[in-house]
């Protein structure tokens, strides 16, 4: 059963004028009637949807007055219209629930009337096919908007409404002139009719007419630079009203533009696209500088509309699928309305005043982050699928260069949205007085839209093969449940996560998922293993605020598992982005994680977009799988490789792009950092190896005389050296390890860049080994931090006496890290150096060896400052780290030792893997002796035995020759006869490497940080300059359309 | 450096004479004794010492406190504090002496003018028992750790008695005065005559 769509216009209009009567009965009655009306409109749209979707219903074509098309007012109701009307109704419903609790008794009728009027206008705009009628509905909607805005409670509302009306009037004049002339040219007002009757493009005057129409619409759509009044509106009007407008009028006007664009000859396409893209990038750029979240949302709306305007001609040409643009529009409507409602729920005006917003409400925080994720186009939300569709269509349609501004604009969205969320996540301090507004009764719309965005996004994934994978679905499901139940005790959460991971591990093990001879199998084992160790350690349940990440953690693991096993570029990217945002959320949940989290997200976002760019190039060349990348040739191959590698390096924090890493690593929850460093930083390495290097190296041209892979190795070497040196001067234990982690990733990059079986073996060996020992170090330090409550190393000391297991963990960790025999660090380094020597990259070899020596300083300083030296009196009574942590540490020690004694356990499968990858063996392994292909041997087991025998022998010798020995007290040191000062003063730990710092001083300027700071500052300067166009003066706002006409005329008429 | 009434001190042929003249002009007629060409002794009353020192420190080239010590005038019932202030550029020193009441034994600290005075004052406090209110390390042991007797540099402190009481002597030597001991052992004619 379907309901006549004409009622969409008739019923709200009718009820609108009756509403003041109902309001006499009381506010409940008025609200109820209004609500019922909106529900009815929604039902009308819904009743058509199934039929329209499966094609069993033909679109309705309504002719009023009983005349035929050219004469009668023609309403059309197809799938697009149904969806738009549904969205409009839903937004209106949400806004009603939001606004009704805020309206006074005596304004409720008036406000309801205007709301219904706006809806009527919007429905009309959506459905009408008559040009003049369109103008009429536009006016109805506009009048409603002016009035509703001007009635707002804020002082600025009236001014905002007036300015809006001013520019609206200009727009109306342009439109009316355009319509009149068009009528003269074609003799009809019906759009469908008109399309057939359009005169040839060369007709005199047609261009002027089109110009008028487009100008009018541009002003109505608030494109750059005529969007000033609209922005004032966002700042001045009630957020609920703005949400209503976003869902109704804005979409309506956009659809009206769609219809008008049907009339515009193809020569104007570039002009429209340029205007749209300029709006998208420009508005996003301006939004970055905004300090007031609501105004920022306004810019964001402007930008999104600009993007859709950009797409209109492309969709009409058939270059871009309608679905892509539609998904973007739905995504924008859902997310932006939600954000607007939420922005009204907190009294903060500036971002700073949003500090700690919604701290008390899980629902609002969750909804906020869902909307932000959705609007920044991350999977699984509809915006992601829309963007992917649009981008791939652009690439396929030969509009590839347009993807560049699109990606840049999207990155800017990351900057300001996560910048805003950073303040929300920062714990509130007492001097921030802003507080939440209102109760939870008006949250219906927010919750519904958040769920809708999530469910719709997931529903869009229904056909992807990922949904069939038991492990992924299981882990994601458990993860979602745990995320929702995050108020449970930590131990329960951790136990559930451990059990889920254990089950997943079992399923994968029985399914042969851990086949170490394939990269995916190896990484499966790493991901699940590291996940299990972290969850076990999580059973300790620390006192940190950010330790409830288990739900997100499971989702992340699912995404990682997908990432390393898929061959599909889309799925790879989906998994990549899910990993990005889940890890972002976990990092942000650390105590001080908000700020580094933002940096992390922006850099990850940039990395993601670089990958997206690379993938898009491949898709543009017709390859949608990772295997397909191997078929790329020529400059496409080089560009794709460059983009992918840059993206991966960005995510792995290579030198120059590393500034996010120390903050993110050190501020992430202590238990999560091992995973971040051990696994997540390795995923880009997997990417470089298994995705970027699918593009055969032979296809990579040399830039000048420089081999691209050599360049990659150089970056790896600089990463290893630069960050190792930086680690030497850290005072914060976690920061030290963070720099060290990133530096170690440099070794892997070098190993991969060598592109020989031996180099890759070294890299993969280091991947596994680094996970083990760095996880061990981070976990042990996490235990220490848990017990001492500080991360600054010189505030500790002498903990060996209190925390022996942690000490042994760190000891094993640093011996493994340093590459000193007999642990496997040496084996890994040996493999790498042999590979480098065989390749002949001597200076990179020197760089790597040198950085491994420099690493000694920070390693010693870590263990000395924390565990050796004088025990502080306040630490006399602390205990060993909690048992679960100790268990995890012991397991990792076992792993490290196993690799040290029997490296062939790992090297055998790696050999097989290399055989598959290269068709060559990396090593010959006879028993315990490793032999490279060039005939160099290493006997790791023998080395271990040798050291052990000598060690035991000397141990016995010392026992034998030692006179009776007494353990003396701590401060009994030969201190020139003086009584030693307190332990704090004689623990030499602060600025440990000071002479070294002096020696290196000229090289130690924070160049990367300064570079990025200057980038930020320069961008800020540009934005400030551009922002001057928004003078806030009504006269200049009227002037801009006129100026825009000139520009537009040049662009459009120039052809 | 530059005194508005008198011109630059560096130009005067005899800096000692000149500085004493200026002090007399400014603070009053203190008795002065020209001990050497580059050393002048001035006896300053207690109430004037701080103004004189401040003036010297801030407005003349006499910027260095070379020494600060005390003398116990037991018979007069007074302590004497001696400030040796030097003009390092001119190589001339002023020896400012202040008499204090021995019963009260308190003087104003000058560590605000010269930080190093802190140590001198600590030492005088320990050795003479003169108190400098406000000086940072008063009462903190400097050389005498755990000293419980009268400050040892006061002249009424009987060193020999204290010494006999505290530090035992090696048995077998009857008299501690070496002059007497040697005289007895080797005869009066030995080393004495």
């Amino acid at each position, binding site marked *: 059963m379907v309901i006549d769509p004409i009622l969409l216009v008739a019923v709200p209009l009718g009820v609108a004028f009756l509403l003041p009567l109902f309001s006499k009965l009381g506010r409940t009655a008025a609200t109820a009637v209004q609500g019922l009306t909106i529900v009815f409109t929604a039902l009308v749209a819904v009743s058509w949807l199934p039929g329209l979707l499966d094609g069993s219903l033909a679109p309705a074509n309504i002719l009023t007055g009983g005349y035929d098309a050219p004469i009668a007012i023609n309403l059309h109701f197809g799938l697009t219209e149904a969806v738009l009307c549904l969205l409009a109704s839903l937004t209106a419903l949400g806004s009603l629930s939001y606004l009704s609790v805020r309206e006074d008794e005596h304004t409720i009728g008036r406000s309801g009337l205007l709301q219904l009027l706006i809806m009527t206008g919007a429905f009309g705009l959506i459905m009408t096919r008559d040009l003049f009628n369109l103008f009429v509905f536009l006016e109805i909607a506009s009048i409603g908007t002016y009035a509703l805005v001007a009635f707002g409670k804020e002082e600025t509302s009236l001014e905002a409404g007036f300015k809006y009306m001013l520019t609206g009037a200009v727009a109306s004049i342009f439109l009316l002139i355009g319509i009149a002339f068009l009528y003269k040219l074609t003799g009809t007002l019906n759009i469908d009719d008109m399309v057939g009757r359009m005169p040839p493009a060369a007709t005199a005057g047609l261009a002027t007419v089109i110009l008028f129409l487009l100008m009018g619409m541009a002003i109505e759509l608030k494109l750059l630079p005529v969007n000033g009044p609209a922005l004032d509106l966002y700042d001045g009007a009630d957020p609920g009203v703005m949400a209503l407008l976003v869902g109704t009028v804005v979409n309506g006007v956009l659809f009206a533009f769609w219809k008008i664009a049907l009339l515009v000859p193809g020569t104007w396409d570039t002009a429209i696209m340029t205007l749209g893209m300029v709006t998208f990038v420009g508005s996003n750029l301006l939004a970055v500088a905004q300090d007031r979240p609501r105004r920022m949302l306004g810019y964001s709306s402007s930008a999104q509309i600009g993007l859709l305007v950009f797409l209109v001609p492309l969709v009409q040409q058939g270059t871009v699928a309608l679905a892509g643009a539609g998904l973007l529009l739905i995504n924008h409507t859902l997310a932006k309305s939600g954000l607007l409602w939420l922005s009204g729920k907190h009294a903060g005006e500036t971002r700073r005043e949003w500090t700690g917003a919604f701290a008390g409400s899980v629902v609002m925080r969750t909804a906020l982050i869902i909307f932000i994720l959705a609007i920044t186009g991350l999977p699984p939300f509809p915006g992601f699928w829309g963007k992917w569709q649009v981008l791939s269509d652009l690439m396929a349609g030969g509009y590839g260069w347009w993807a560049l501004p699109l990606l840049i604009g999207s990155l800017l969205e990351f900057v300001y949205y996560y910048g805003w969320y950073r303040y929300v996540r920062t714990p509130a301090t007492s001097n921030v007085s802003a507080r939440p507004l209102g109760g939870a009764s008006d949250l219906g719309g927010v919750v519904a839209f958040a769920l809708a965005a999530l469910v719709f996004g997931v529903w869009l994934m229904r056909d992807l093969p990922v949904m069939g994978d038991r492990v992924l679905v299981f882990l994601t499901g458990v993860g979602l449940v745990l995320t929702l139940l995050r108020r449970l005790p930590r131990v329960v959460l951790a136990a559930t996560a451990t059990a889920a991971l254990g089950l997943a591990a079992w399923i994968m093990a029985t399914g042969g998922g851990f086949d170490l001879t394939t990269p995916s199998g190896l990484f499966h084992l790493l991901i699940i293993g590291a996940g299990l160790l972290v969850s076990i350690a999580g059973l300790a349940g620390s006192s940190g605020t950010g330790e409830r990440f288990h739900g997100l953690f499971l989702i992340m693991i699912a995404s990682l598992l997908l990432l390393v096993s898929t061959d599909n570029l889309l799925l790879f990217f989906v998994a990549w982005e899910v990993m990005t945002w889940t890890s972002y959320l976990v990092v942000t949940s650390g105590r001080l994680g908000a700020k580094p989290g933002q940096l992390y997200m922006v850099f990850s976002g940039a990395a993601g977009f670089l990958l997206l760019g690379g993938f898009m190039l491949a898709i543009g060349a017709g390859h949608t799988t990772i295997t397909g990348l191997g078929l790329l040739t020529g400059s496409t191959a080089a560009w794709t490789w460059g983009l992918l590698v840059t993206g991966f390096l960005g995510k792995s924090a290579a030198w120059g792009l590393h500034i996010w890493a120390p903050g993110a690593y050190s501020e992430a929850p202590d238990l999560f950092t091992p995973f971040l460093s051990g696994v997540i930083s390795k995923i880009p390495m997997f990417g470089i190896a298994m995705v970027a290097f699918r593009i055969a190296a032979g296809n990579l041209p040399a830039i000048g005389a420089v081999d691209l892979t050599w360049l990659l190795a150089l970056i790896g070497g600089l990463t290893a050296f630069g960050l190792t040196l930086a680690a030497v001067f850290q005072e914060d234990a976690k920061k030290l390890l963070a720099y060290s982690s990133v530096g170690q990733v440099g070794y892997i990059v070098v190993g991969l860049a060598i592109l020989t079986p031996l180099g890759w073996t070294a890299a993969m060996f280091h991947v596994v080994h680094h996970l083990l020992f760095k996880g061990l170090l981070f976990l042990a330090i996490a235990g220490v931090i848990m017990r001492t409550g500080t991360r600054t190393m010189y505030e500790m000391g002498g903990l060996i006496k209190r925390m022996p297991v942690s000490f042994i963990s760190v000891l094993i960790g640093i011996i493994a890290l340093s590459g000193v025999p007999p642990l496997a660090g040496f084996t890994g380094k040996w493999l790498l150096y042999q590979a480098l020597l065989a390749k002949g990259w001597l200076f990179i070899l020197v760089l790597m060896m040198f950085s491994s020596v420099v690493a*000694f300083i920070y390693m010693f300083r870590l263990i000395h400052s924390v565990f050796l030296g004088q025990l502080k009196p306040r630490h006399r009574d602390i205990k060993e780290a909690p048992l679960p942590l100790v268990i995890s540490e012991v397991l990792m020690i076992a792993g490290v030792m196993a690799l040290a004694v029997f490296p062939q356990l790992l090297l055998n499968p790696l050999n097989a893997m290399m055989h598959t990858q290269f068709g060559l063996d990396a090593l010959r392994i006879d028993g315990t002796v490793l032999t490279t292909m060039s005939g160099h041997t290493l006997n790791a087991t023998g080395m271990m035995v040798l050291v052990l025998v000598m060690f035991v022998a000397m141990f016995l010798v*010392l026992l034998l020759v030692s006179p009776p020995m007494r353990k003396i007290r701590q401060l009994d040191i030969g201190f020139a006869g003086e009584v030693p000062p307190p332990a704090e003063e004689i623990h*030499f730990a602060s600025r440990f490497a000071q002479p070294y710092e002096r020696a290196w001083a000229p090289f130690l300027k924070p160049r990367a940080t300064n570079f990025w700071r200057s980038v930020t500052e320069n961008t800020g300067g540009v934005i400030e300059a551009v922002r001057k166009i928004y003078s806030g003066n009504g006269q200049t706002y009227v002037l801009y359309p006129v100026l825009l006409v000139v520009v537009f005329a040049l662009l459009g008429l120039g052809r | 450096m530059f005194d508005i009434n008198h011109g630059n001190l560096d130009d005067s042929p005899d800096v000692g004479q000149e500085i004493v003249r200026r002090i007399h002009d400014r603070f009053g007629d203190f008795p002065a004794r020209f001990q050497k060409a580059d050393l002048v002794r001035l006896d300053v009353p207690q109430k004037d010492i701080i103004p004189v020192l401040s003036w010297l420190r801030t407005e003349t080239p006499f910027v260095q406190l070379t020494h600060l010590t005390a003398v116990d005038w037991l018979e007069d019932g007074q302590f004497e504090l001696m400030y040796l202030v030097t003009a390092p550029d001119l190589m001339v020193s002023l020896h400012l002496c202040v008499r204090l009441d021995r019963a009260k034994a308190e003087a104003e600290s000058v560590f605000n003018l010269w930080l190093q005075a802190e140590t001198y004052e600590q030492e005088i406090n320990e050795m003479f028992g003169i108190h400098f209110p406000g000086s940072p390390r008063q009462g903190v042991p400097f050389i005498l750790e755990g000293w419980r007797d009268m400050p040892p540099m006061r002249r009424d402190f009987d060193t020999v008695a204290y010494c006999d009481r505290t530090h035992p002597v090696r048995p077998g030597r009857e008299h501690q005065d070496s002059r007497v001991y040697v005289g007895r052992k080797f005869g009066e004619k030995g080393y004495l005559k």
Partner: protein
Amino acid sequence: MELFPKIGWTLLSLFVAINYGFLINGLIRKVMARIQGRFGPPLWQPYIDMGKLLVQRNSIMHGYMHWLGPIFRSVGGMGVYVLVPVVIGEPRLAGFSDMGDLLLMMYFMFFGSLGMALGAGDAGHPHSPIGVSRGLSQMTAFEMPFILAVVALAAHVGSFDINAIIATQQHGVLSWNLFANPFASAAAFLALLGMNMYAPFNIVGAPTEIPVGPATEYQNSYLSLMMIGRSALAIGKMVMFMDLFLGGAHSIGAAVVKILAIYFWSVFVGAVFPRFRTEQSVRFFLRWPTAFGVAGVLLTQWVR
């Protein structure tokens, strides 16, 4: 060779080496004394010191790491020695050099330093970490020219195998790397000054500021173990330099002479120079020696 005879020969060779180290140590003291116009202690004074250290009557322990430090030290020193082939073509004196190559030796040198530093740190005396900080800083610095030199040699033969490097130097004295690659040799021998820690690079145990550096809290049997480790390490290092730059040795006598010559290079330099500050030392190594090293690597590449 069978395992057990090999162990026996290695032990014997190690014993001789340690004794040789002791004697060189005594000789150094004697020579230094003569340079300063003194008599100096007898040649066997290190043995007497060793004996005295072993017959002390009591000893202290600050913690288990403190106790283990000297063990690490001695194992590190002995490990380096047993990994280098002393005499060409004499498997009985090659120790376990078949177990690894130059890389293994280079990293094994850190084993003792790291363990010793840990033990010293556990003692809780502030001078220990200060000494370690200086030592590590200087170590990273002199490793730069040394690594460059080693890479230059290794690249020349395309292998880190020390026997391969020796093999290229068997065509007369002029084929020694000392003359074949003078730049790399210059870098390495300058680095050796830092390794041996005689003046001007004796900043770790700088007698005036941080009396004996890391070993401040060590005594008696600990010291004796450290003496053993030090002389094994010294001889091991000298043998390595001999193999790398002086064409190895064909007989024990040649080895003895060459080792002595290499060792006394740093002793003589140490006799006439005052001490650097840490940052001066670091900068020194990162300037000319590094430049020589780079030249050495470039020379190798050019020759290839």
